[in-house]
């Protein structure tokens, strides 16, 4: 029988966090991310013989993450919607109690996840790579095999959508505040 080559372990060590983050940001739920990360690295292991170092290793791994996350979303659309709803509920409940800083950070992360889940896939990829992975426009163009102009326009659209969703959720959060003045004569105020 056979153990993975030591070099593969080095590759794994160097990129596990990257793969984990990418999967999360591409919509894989936290309870599933470990399983999907294994899938990414097993795929990488088997595909390695065909990887000829033409692309950077992160570009290559990101491509595998994209495929695995896309399969995941196709196979678990319902679970994903539940996750999105749960994340939104968390956000709206967030200010009802006085949460610890850590809980608050977690709620913020769930809220951000819910918003990312609402972006169209093409925009989401560009947004994640630019705002979170801090790749340059050119690097993103290379990673996604699109032009720099397309990167820019998708980024602009993604930012607009992100900003819109943040405002919407900020309003929802404001409505959910317990100290918000209650006006009994206008129960349905939104």
């Amino acid at each position, binding site marked *: *029988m056979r153990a*993975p080559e*030591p*070099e593969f372990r080095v590759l794994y060590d160097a990129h596990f*966090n990257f793969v984990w983050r990418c999967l*999360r940001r591409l919509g894989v739920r*936290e309870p*599933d991310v470990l399983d999907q990360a294994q*899938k990414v690295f097993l795929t990488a292991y088997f595909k390695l013989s065909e990887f000829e170092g033409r692309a950077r290793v992160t570009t290559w791994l990101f491509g595998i993450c994209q495929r695995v996350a896309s399969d995941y979303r196709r196979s678990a659309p319902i679970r994903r919607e539940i996750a999105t709803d749960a994340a939104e509920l968390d956000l709206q409940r967030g200010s009802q109690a006085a949460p610890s800083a850590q809980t608050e950070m977690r709620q913020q992360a769930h809220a951000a996840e819910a918003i990312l889940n609402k972006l169209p896939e093409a925009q989401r990829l560009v947004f994640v790579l630019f705002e979170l992975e801090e790749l340059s426009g050119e690097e993103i163009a290379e990673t996604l095999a699109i032009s720099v102009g397309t990167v820019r326009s998708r980024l602009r659209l993604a930012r607009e959508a992100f900003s819109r969703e943040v405002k919407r959720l900020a309003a929802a959060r404001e409505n959910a505040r317990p100290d918000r003045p209650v006006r009994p004569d206008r129960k349905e105020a939104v």
Partner: protein
Amino acid sequence: MSQDPERLLQLRSPGEQLERELLASIKQDGPPAHAKDEAWLAIAGRVAALGAAAGTAAAGTGSAAASSASFAWGATAKAGLSALVPKALAIKIAWTLAAGGVALGGYLTVQQARSTPARPPSPAVHVPARANTPVESAPAAAPTAVPAAPSATPAAEANIPVRASEAPPRRDGRPAPLDRLSAESALLAAARAQLLAGDARTAEATLARLRARFPHGVLIQEREVLAIELLAAQGRAAAAARRARAFARAYPQSPHSAKLNRFLDAP
């Protein structure tokens, strides 16, 4: 690049404060401390299990030597890896961990359940190591066309126990996704080894089986690339070129697309 806009996280205007907070929170989101080792244990288990399964099929005895060949970790892979990781880093060998990983693989489910008490149950997370991976259509005989990795340490390999058969079967009786991936990989590796060994006919049959069994498999691109290489090996250059063009159209972002350029010269 200089014309890139400023990142939201670096903007200073007060208007986007909540946007920045949300982004910062997701940026801080990372794997829990134990995740990396847990996932590695499972991966090492899967790799060893696959090797064992293929080895059994090849030699009828589960011979370690036979399995390593069918795994298709060829010279190209080694060269690819050398390009990816500095040699100095590769000196420290993680055989002990890998061996421990396989030994612990059978207990992974328990370990995961214990380490993540707050999480909802997720059947997909349970990835126990199994030696008897269902690879019934795995290579009947994997030719040793691919040289075994010279770094393989026989002693270390011999020490790796596979606690495979202890894995619980899935309730619905269907193979787990990783079992499917393993079986798909084994078939692909077999087809590749057959082609490398010059047995294009058997490779073609194996590819046909792979296609029938995993029409939407994870390794669909690799299967297609191999099919193109097979056509070229059979002297069917025009067909290979046609298919390579179709591949590049279907997967423009694939790292394989550039590699397939060499097939495009045919009319």
